[in-house]
């Protein structure tokens, strides 16, 4: 009984601490995003203000001009406008002329064209004549008072603008300071919460901790076994994945590679064995006790062999699905669209755009993914996994269905992700080229059993692997 109560309390504490630490991280992101947004906002406001001031300045300038200049300017404006307006009619005349040539012969068409063009030209020259008359008549003296006002305003212009800019900057800085104060207060509260939780946790379960052999190991499979009825898909499989490496799992068709993945992410509950995983707090947890939808909270994200994108949502919203677990806003926040939710949406959107930009997908952000090229879709799914700052990314046949150029691009992307996001990548692949190219360690399995594990070179030269994996293919080739 005491054990059960203990485990319930421990679970609650862990959940509380995870929530707090994810909020803590989000707050940091929020500060960065808020700073950028405020800066951009103040820049935009300055632009608007500048436009307003220039408009009033122009009005003053108009006033300060002599009637002659005024008339001159208005004539220029009018002619420019007319020229602009006459562009389309002129084009239309040209088109009609081309059509008339076919229907009525060249002469009639020429006649029509010259008549129509003359009409347009007449309009132009009529306006010119009218204004030239006005210009001749209007006096050339300037109004001194308004001229003075204009020069004064012009001198004021820079000062006014810089004043506004300064004021705006101060305002946005004050706003940022307010936000920072609030967030830092929140963060110190969260930090205290996290510390309290960890302390309580330390007191509670010092004995239950399982220690992994190697401190660099992030994932350890121990005698993993998965049966479907009488079929053993995975048979006593054990291996370790080290932190920061790209680990490849290979094997012929039906070797149980995807089943291993499904066992790790709990889509299939393993029938035997343990899967240990070291989370970011350096605690070892047994994944077999986790629910499917809680796996992502530990920092493990996966992709699927057949694309599992949300076809009814835009690419950006697909990315936001990836960060679903990071939202701490509850249902009532969603119902009322509270400030908390809006803030979180802003953070997530900024993060999603950042990830999309890094992977070169920014052009597709508002597109529904349906119908995009397969390589792009694979990349979007990969990008979606990065939304939660994962520790371990599990890729199920990332190169399936891609051509050679796309596979090369994918290899580069995977390397980039590993380096940029400092995460471990664990992949299943058929494309031997890709595996040998990017993996640090390769594990070969066949019929759920381990064949060999080592560096790509070792695997390539391993006789057992060759026999199981390539053997049949080689003999077939020889037969031909």
């Amino acid at each position, binding site marked *: 009984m005491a054990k059960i109560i203990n485990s319930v309390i421990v679970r609650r504490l862990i959940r509380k601490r995870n929530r707090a630490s994810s909020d803590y991280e989000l707050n940091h992101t929020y500060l960065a995003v808020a700073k950028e947004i405020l800066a951009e*906002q103040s820049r*935009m406001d300055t632009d608007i203000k500048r436009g307003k001031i220039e408009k009033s300045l122009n009005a003053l300038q108009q006033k300060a001009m002599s009637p002659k200049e005024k008339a001159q300017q208005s004539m220029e404006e009018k002619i420019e406008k007319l020229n602009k307006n006459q562009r389309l009619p002129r084009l239309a005349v040209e*088109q009609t002329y081309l059509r008339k040539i076919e229907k009525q012969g060249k002469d009639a068409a020429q006649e029509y064209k010259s008549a129509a063009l003359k009409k347009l030209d007449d309009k132009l020259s009529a306006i010119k004549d009218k204004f030239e008359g006005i210009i001749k008549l209007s006096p050339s003296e300037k109004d001194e008072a308004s001229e003075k006002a204009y020069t004064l305003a012009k001198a004021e212009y820079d000062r006014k603008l810089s004043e506004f800019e300064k004021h705006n900057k101060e305002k946005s800085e004050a706003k940022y300071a307010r936000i920072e104060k609030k967030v830092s207060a929140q963060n110190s509260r969260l930090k205290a919460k996290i510390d309290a939780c960890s302390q309580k946790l330390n007191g509670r379960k010092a004995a239950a901790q399982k220690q992994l052999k190697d401190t660099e190991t992030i994932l350890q499979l121990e005698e993993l076994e998965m049966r479907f009825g009488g079929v053993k898909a995975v048979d006593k499989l054990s291996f370790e994945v080290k932190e920061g490496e790209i680990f490849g799992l290979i094997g012929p068709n039906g070797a149980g590679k995807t089943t291993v993945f499904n066992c790790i992410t709990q889509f299939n509950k393993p029938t035997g064995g343990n899967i240990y995983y070291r989370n970011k707090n350096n605690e070892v947890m047994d994944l077999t006790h986790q629910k499917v939808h809680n*796996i992502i909270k530990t920092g493990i994200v996966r992709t*699927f062999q057949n694309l599992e994108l949300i076809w009814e949502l835009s690419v950006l919203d697909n990315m936001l*699905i990836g960060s679903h677990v990071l939202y701490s806003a509850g*249902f009532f926040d969603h119902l009322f*669209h509270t400030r908390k939710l809006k803030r979180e949406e802003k953070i997530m959107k900024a993060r999603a755009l950042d990830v999309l930009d890094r992977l070169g997908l920014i052009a597709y952000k508002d597109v529904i993914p349906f119908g995009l090229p397969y390589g792009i879709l694979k990349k979007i799914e990969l990008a979606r996994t990065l939304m939660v700052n994962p520790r371990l990314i599990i890729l199920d046949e990332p190169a399936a269905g891609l051509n050679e150029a796309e596979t090369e691009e994918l290899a580069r992307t995977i390397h980039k992700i590993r380096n940029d996001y400092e995460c471990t990548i664990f992949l299943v692949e058929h494309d031997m080229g890709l595996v040998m190219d990017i993996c640090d360690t390769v594990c070969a399995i066949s019929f759920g059993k381990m064949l060999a594990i080592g560096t790509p070179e070792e695997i390539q030269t391993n006789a057992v692997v060759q026999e199981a994996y390539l053997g049949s293919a080689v003999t077939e080739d020889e037969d031909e």
Partner: protein
Amino acid sequence: MANEYRKELINDRSKKAKQIVSHPLFGFVILTIILAGVQLLFMFTEDIISLTVSKAIAQTLIYAIVGMGFAILLGYAGLASLGTAGFIGLGSYIAGNMLKLIPFPVPYILIIGAVIIAGIVLGGVVGFISLRIEGMYLAIITLGLSEILLELFKTPNQFTGGASGLKSVPWAKLAMFYEMDREKMFFLILGVLFITIVFTINIINSPTGRAMLAMKNSQSAAQAMGISILKYRLLAFVLATIYAMIGGALYVTYLRASNTSSWTLALSLNVLAAVIIGGYRSVWGVLMGTFVIFGLDLAVLKNIDFFNKYPGSSAIFSGVLIVLIVMFYPGGLIRLFADIKTLIKSGIEKWKVYRYGKDYK
């Protein structure tokens, strides 16, 4: 913020008027004002709007509320239910009995609260069922549940009034003392509809709506992204049931009667038809669908002799409409507007190319 693409995170103050017009709720505010205007016309003039039309609009609005819950369930969570009528009926009986049996004046908020609690319980039960069963079979189960409720309503007892139904329900009080009548009830319905629209739009534009869509499209992806299927299925059913029950409560307080014969499969199918005909991914679509299915039937077709002579022939109308929509407009009637818009745009483009030549831009 050097990147151009991040501009969408910032509100551009120079386009304030445009922001107001493009706000998702702008159209609904206009619609609410128009409907209130129609009711005011009915109240203060003699001939322009008849009582039938006012009643028809009010009932249509009630069904629109129900339809919105159903749209969340079908369009977002991807779950089919044929139990809507039973839920509406239950809501109406709960509200009606509260008004009839409680001796002191019941404020309306209490009625709404009661049906919401009932909705959470009932929706939770159905939601748990939906974890095991999917698609057509879920529809059959919910249909069975609705029929059980209907049989319960039909058995003679003091709460539902047996087969003859609940009659002469007193008018509700808005607060403790402000008594409602039919004209004032209309505005209450309009208000509730507007609040429902706001909540629906908020839900479907929030992580909840996205999570539901994710669940509908790919369960495994949703689970891998940390979306609990249990939570969101329950939530979808609870929401749909609450909407249906609020619709029932409004129905009984507006018409002051609740007939057992109203809560049959036909009503559930009509709600389904309305949502599918209008378009289940958009609130406008749901509103349009309910106006086509319920509004036309109540306000227009009932006044035509032919449809009065052969009751039930209006079902032919909605049936044909469903067939046509599903065949040609799987996205619902709301797609029609988008299509017309693109058609007009491309037509203008073609004409311009004809008139000004290919490179007129």
